[in-house]
């Protein structure tokens, strides 16, 4: 029973840890499917986290915080669009720039506005997204097997967690069942064809980047307003890059993205759980090994040893109307 509880708890923290990855990964999916590489997921998440926590603590409202997180994150996405779509700059360089601007400005503004060493004030319960307890969750907790699954895994998360998982089928539906999705995928594969059909490549790509900004904003808000009661400097800590890795791992498909993020979240949860405890047969596994595993797996996948990851064909190439 102890073992079962341990497993349930690990899976529960897997869900909590995969949510920001999943949101950022789906965010990257929109922009990369539209042919815009986005290394700036990390930075957009960071400004989202900061704006969310800052607005929530000033206006005492979680929803205003979320709105501000989305707004600022979209603004950064539009800067990326301005550089890489309008001015046809190098998309990777632009993404790198956004990450630095985000990392620096969140610390400077945080320190100037709140004077707590780059943190925002700790959020009160009303300023955060609280866990939603599903009906009967406490009653069935004692039931073996199914009880913990219902009360730990399904119930007791914040609204953003459910939103993140609902975004998976929604993204699938948008990409594969709507006209916008068809065009978005087309512009990532062959923008000239989209242009010939009389659709503006630039506007389509901007719209894809706005979707990206919205989702990274939610991801950031989750970090600072759900997982942690306030903003801490550099709190994304490479999650944007893991999300990028997960996106490649998922071969740019929404449902795969969910499984990739759950896998990477599980590795993270396992690393925390197993810290210092020896495993049977293998002995003590260094935590660092578990932390490096998502990156190693991604490199192996990219090398084409586990299936082949083929990115959208026009990815990273600015569109020029006439050559």
């Amino acid at each position, binding site marked *: 029973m102890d073992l079962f509880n341990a497993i349930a708890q690990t899976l529960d923290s897997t869900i909590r840890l995969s949510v920001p990855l999943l949101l950022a990964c789906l965010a990257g999916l929109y922009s990369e499917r539209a042919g815009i590489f986005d290394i700036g997921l990390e930075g957009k998440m960071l400004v989202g986290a900061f704006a969310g926590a800052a607005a929530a603590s000033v206006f005492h409202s979680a929803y205003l915080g979320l709105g501000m997180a989305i707004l600022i994150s979209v603004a950064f996405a539009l800067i990326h669009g301005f550089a890489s779509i309008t001015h046809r700059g190098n998309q990777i360089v632009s993404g*790198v720039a956004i990450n630095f601007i985000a990392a620096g*400005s969140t610390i*400077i*503004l945080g320190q100037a506005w709140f004077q707590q060493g780059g943190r925002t004030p700790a959020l009160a319960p009303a300023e955060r997204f609280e866990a939603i307890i599903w009906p009967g969750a406490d009653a069935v907790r004692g039931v073996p097997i199914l009880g913990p699954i219902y009360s730990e895994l399904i119930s007791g998360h914040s609204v953003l967690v459910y939103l993140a998982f609902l975004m998976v089928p929604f993204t699938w539906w948008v990409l594969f069942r709507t006209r916008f999705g068809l065009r978005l995928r087309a512009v990532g594969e062959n923008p000239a064809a989209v242009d010939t059909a009389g659709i503006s490549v630039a506007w389509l790509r901007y719209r894809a980047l706005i979707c990206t900004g919205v989702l990274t904003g939610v991801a950031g808000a989750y970090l600072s307003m759900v997982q942690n009661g306030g903003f801490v400097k550099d709190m994304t800590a490479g999650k944007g890059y893991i999300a990028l890795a997960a996106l490649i791992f998922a071969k740019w498909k929404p449902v795969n993205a969910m499984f990739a993020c759950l896998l990477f979240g599980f590795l993270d949860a396992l690393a925390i759980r197993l810290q210092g405890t020896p495993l049977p047969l293998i002995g003590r596994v260094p935590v*660092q*090994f578990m932390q490096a595993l998502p*990156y190693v797996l991604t490199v192996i996948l990219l090398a*084409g040893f586990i299936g082949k990851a083929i990115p959208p064909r026009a990815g990273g190439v600015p569109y020029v109307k006439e050559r």
Partner: protein
Amino acid sequence: MSTPYAKLPGWADYGLIPVINLFVAFVVAGFVVMLVGENPLRAAAILVEGAFGRGQGIAFTLYYATTFIFSGLSVAVAVHCGLFNIGGEGQGYIAGLGIGVVCLAFDSVLPWWLTFPLAIIAAAAMGALWALIPAYLQAKRGSHIVITTIMFNFIAASVMVYMLVDVLKPAGSMAPQTRNFLEGGQLPKLNWIIELFGAKIRSAPLNVTFLLALVMAFLVWLLIWRTKLGYEMRTYGHSPKAARYAGISETRIIIIAMLISGALAGMMALNPVMGDQHNVALDFVSGAGFVGIAVALMGRSHPVGIVLAAILFGMLYQGGAELAFEMPAISRDMIVIIQGLVILFAGALEHMFRPHIQALFASISPRTVGIEAVKGKGA
């Protein structure tokens, strides 16, 4: 990179445009300073005064610049071959391991001038090794070098934490770092050069690695513009198709360029490890590898430009430290914003001002601009 633009006179291309980009970056940074509630002009004055006002400041500025010259050259070599090596951070970090092993083994038996060459070789070899796998994967399996080098940055960070905490940390010590190097692992300072000019220096970490950096800048210039290999790299960077047609082996040129790039990134570790801290500590690179991207973009991937841009960033780092004392609202992270803005304006938005400047030149004297889009710029 994307669209061919008409040719500008050299001084405008290499002088005017970077200066305009830098100016805009500073104006935007000035707005951030105002947002924080300080006077941007006073901040700039303190920054420059802190960096160049006294001998002490100059020595620190050049110390920081040393690291940035290496990381800038590393990015530039790859850029000339059309590759974006974003992994300088990890390559430099892992190179610390090589330097550490050499110094820990020889610091008690050899003088510094024998340890130094061995450490250079170790640093370059480790940096190159860390770039080799992404290079091979790009050349042979077509995996995107940007993604793999990012992944290798994180893998390097994990490896180094493991090595420092579980392997290299002396028994009984709490701090995750190696023991301090003895005399044989410490590089002599260069502060006397600045003192020749009458300035006083209490203690500053400027050391012989600075001279090595200048030598490497010259060697990179030689490599890129005066050797067959450099010509092949530039050809591949300009047009992979043309290079293939000319019989240049794609695999060979990508791997060689990345090995050189990685080796240069690796040498960056010599400066803090042997020149200043005299041990290998956690996170000793602290973002210098990424600064290289801004430095290379600012210096237009030319060694002279890179040295100048590195000194500029050295100034920002040193002056930024002074600024944090004078204006508590502004911490050193201001530099990270400026760095990001420079990358944005000099890199991603490099085409924003160019058409306007070309139009301006064309209206003044059409002959300087040439007639129609001339593709590429040669040198």
